[in-house]
C-alpha cells in the first residue's frame, strides 16, 4: 500500500512530466493539471479498493485504510466462534421438541396433589427415599469426558 509521501512524490513526478512535455504554445492551465492529478488519485484509490468507490470526498485519503467488503459475502452470515464442549452431560436428547404445556400451573398442582393422595402409602417409606427423585440427572463419573 502506498504511503502518503510516496503518493505525493508520484504526484510531483507526474506534474513534472506533464510540465516537461508541454508544448510551448499550450497555456498554463492549472485546472487541467489538477484534473489530471485528480484522475490519477482516483485510480489509485480504486486500485486500493476504497470503501466509498468513486463517491466525492473531502480528502481522498480518508477511508483509505479500509479494506472493501467482499461483495459476495452477506454480513449476517458471519460464522460465530464455535464452542466445543468437553463433556456430553448437557447434550439434549435427540429429536427433542419443546412445546408449551397445555395444562396451566394451577391444574398441574392439582394433578400432582391428586397423585400423591391416591398413591397407596406403604409402611416401607424408607426404601422410597432411596429412589432418585429426578431420574433425568446422571451421577458424575459415569460418563467419561469426551
Amino acid at each position: 500500500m502506498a504511503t502518503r509521501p510516496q503518493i505525493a512524490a508520484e504526484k510531483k513526478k507526474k506534474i513534472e512530466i506533464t510540465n516537461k512535455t508541454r508544448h510551448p504554445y499550450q497555456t498554463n492551465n492549472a485546472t487541467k493539471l489538477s484534473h489530471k492529478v485528480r484522475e490519477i488519485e482516483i485510480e489509485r484509490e480504486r486500485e486500493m479498493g476504497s470503501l466509498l468507490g468513486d463517491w466525492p470526498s473531502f480528502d481522498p485519503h480518508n477511508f483509505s485504510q479500509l479494506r472493501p467488503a467482499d461483495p459476495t459475502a452477506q454480513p449476517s452470515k458471519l460464522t460465530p466462534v464455535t464452542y466445543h464442549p468437553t463433556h456430553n452431560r448437557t447434550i439434549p436428547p435427540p429429536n427433542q421438541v419443546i412445546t408449551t404445556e397445555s395444562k396451566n400451573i394451577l391444574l398441574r398442582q392439582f394433578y400432582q396433589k391428586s397423585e400423591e393422595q391416591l398413591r397407596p402409602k406403604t409402611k416401607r417409606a424408607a426404601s422410597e427415599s432411596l429412589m432418585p427423585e429426578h431420574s433425568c440427572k446422571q451421577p458424575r463419573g459415569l460418563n467419561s469426558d469426551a
Partner: protein
Amino acid sequence: MFRSNNLTARIFERQILTPRPGTSINLFRHFYENVCPSHTVHDIDCPDLSFRKFTDDGQFLIGFSRNHQDLVVYRPSWLNYSCKGECPYSLDLPPKARRFDSFFRHLFTISLASANEFICKDFFLYVDPYRFGLFATSTAQVNDNAASADGAIHGVPSIEKITFHLVRLDDGVVLDEKAFYNDFVNLAHSTGAFLYDDLLCIVSLRYQTIHILQIRESGNLVEVRRIGPYCQEDDELFLQSHAQVSPGSSFLPGIKQRLLSFIFRKTWNEEADQSMRVQHLKKKFYFHFQDYVDLIIWKAQFLDRHHLLIKFGSVDGGVSRNTDQGLSFFAVYNMETTEVVTFYQNSSEEMYSFFERFYDFFNSVSRNTLHAQYISSHTNNSHALNQLLNIKSKSGSFSQFVKKMMLTIPYTCQSHSPSPYFDLSLFRYDDKLISAIDRHRHSTEHPIKFISLRQPNVVKFKIKPGAEGGGPDGGRAKKVSSFLFHPYLPLVLSIQQTYMQPTVVNLHFKR
C-alpha cells in the same frame, strides 16, 4: 421506569426507551398517572336508566330501563367542541359539556322482557371476540320448598322461566335464547354462570346440573354437555337399557358417584397399615357418608376448557348470599375423562396455598383477551400481597381466615373492572370506598382519593360521588353509590342512589 413524572418528558423518553422484554405494556400504563379524570360534571342530565357497566373492551355502555324490560346501549365517545380565536386552557367548558349525549351516543333500545318477565339488572356477561352480550330475564321467584317429581331438590326456590338472551351489541339483534323452566339459577352478579372464551357454564341449582353451552360465531347457543345426573352423554341411554331399577331405589347422580368414589379411594390410601384400613374407612368415610351424599353444587367455574372447579355445600347455604362460613368443599372435575381430580375442604391449607400463589389462574380467561391480564391481584402485585399478608397476620384464627378467603373461589366471571386506575402498581385507594369489583357501596361525603404510588403525598385525582354542595338534605339519608370506570379512557360515571330521591349521576373525565 420513567425517569421523570412530567408528561412531556415521559413522551420524549418513550421515543428512545426500550422496555425490558415483555413489559412494554406495563411501562406505558404509567402514562395513566398523568392522564386522570380531573373534572366533574355533577348531576349530569341523563336519561333515567339504571346503568350496568362498560363492556370490557370499552365499546359499549349497558343500561336497563327503570321498568326492567328494555335494554339500552350507548357507545362512549368524547366531547369535542371548538372556540373562536384563542382558546386558553382556563376557558370554561361549553354548555354542551353538561349533556349526556356529548359523551355517549345512543345506539339502540330493545325490549328483552315480555309482560310478566323482568330483566335481571345484575346479570351481564360480555362475549369479547364476537361483541355479543348475554342477558337474563326471569319471572317472579316462587319459594316452593317441596321437591317435585323430576329430580328437583328441597330447599331451593323455583322460578317459572329463566331465559338467557344472546344479543349482538353492534346493532341490537337478539341472536339466540335459552330458557330454563321451573328452575333456579343464581343470577345475582352473574354468579350462576361463567364464561371462558366461547364456553358458558350455567349452574342449575334446583336440578343440580351444570349446563355447558358453546357460543358460536353465528350467534347460536349450543348445548354441549350436561353434567349432574349423568356424566357422559350416553350414560342415560346405557342405564335405561341395562339397569333393572325398581321404582323405589335410584342411582346417585353421576357426579356424586364420581365424587364419592374419589373420596373412598383417597381415604383408603391414607392409611398405610392394611389391617387398620377398614377402621379408618369407617371413621372417615362411612360415618360422614350421608353428609357427602347430601352435598349440593353451589357454584362452578372453568379452569380451562376441560376442567371445572365446583364448589359443594349444604342445601341451606346455596341460595342465600350471606357470607356464611360453614363447611364447603371444592372439587376439580375433568369433563373429558369425567374424573374428579382433587377434593378439598374449604379450610384446607393446601387449597389456601394455591389461592395465595396462583390466584390469577382462578380468574381464568384465554390468553387472547389482553385487558384481563392486567387486573391487579395479590398474585401479580407485591402491594396487594402485602395487604393480604397483613390481614393474615392480624386475623385471630388461621382457619377462619382461610375460610373467609375461600369465599372468593370459585371466581365470579367479569367482576373486576380492567380500568388502570385500579391498578395497584399505579395508584393507592381506599378499598372499602371503591374497588375494581362492581358492587354498590355506602357512599361517604368525602371525596375518594386516588394517590399515586410513586409519589405518596400527591393525590392524583379525587372522585366525589355526591351532588355538589352535599345534596338537599345535608347528607343524612343513607346513600348507596356505584362507580362505572371506562376500561381505558379517563371517564368515570358515579351513580348515587338515595332512598326516595332521584338518582344522581356524575361524570368525571379529563378536561
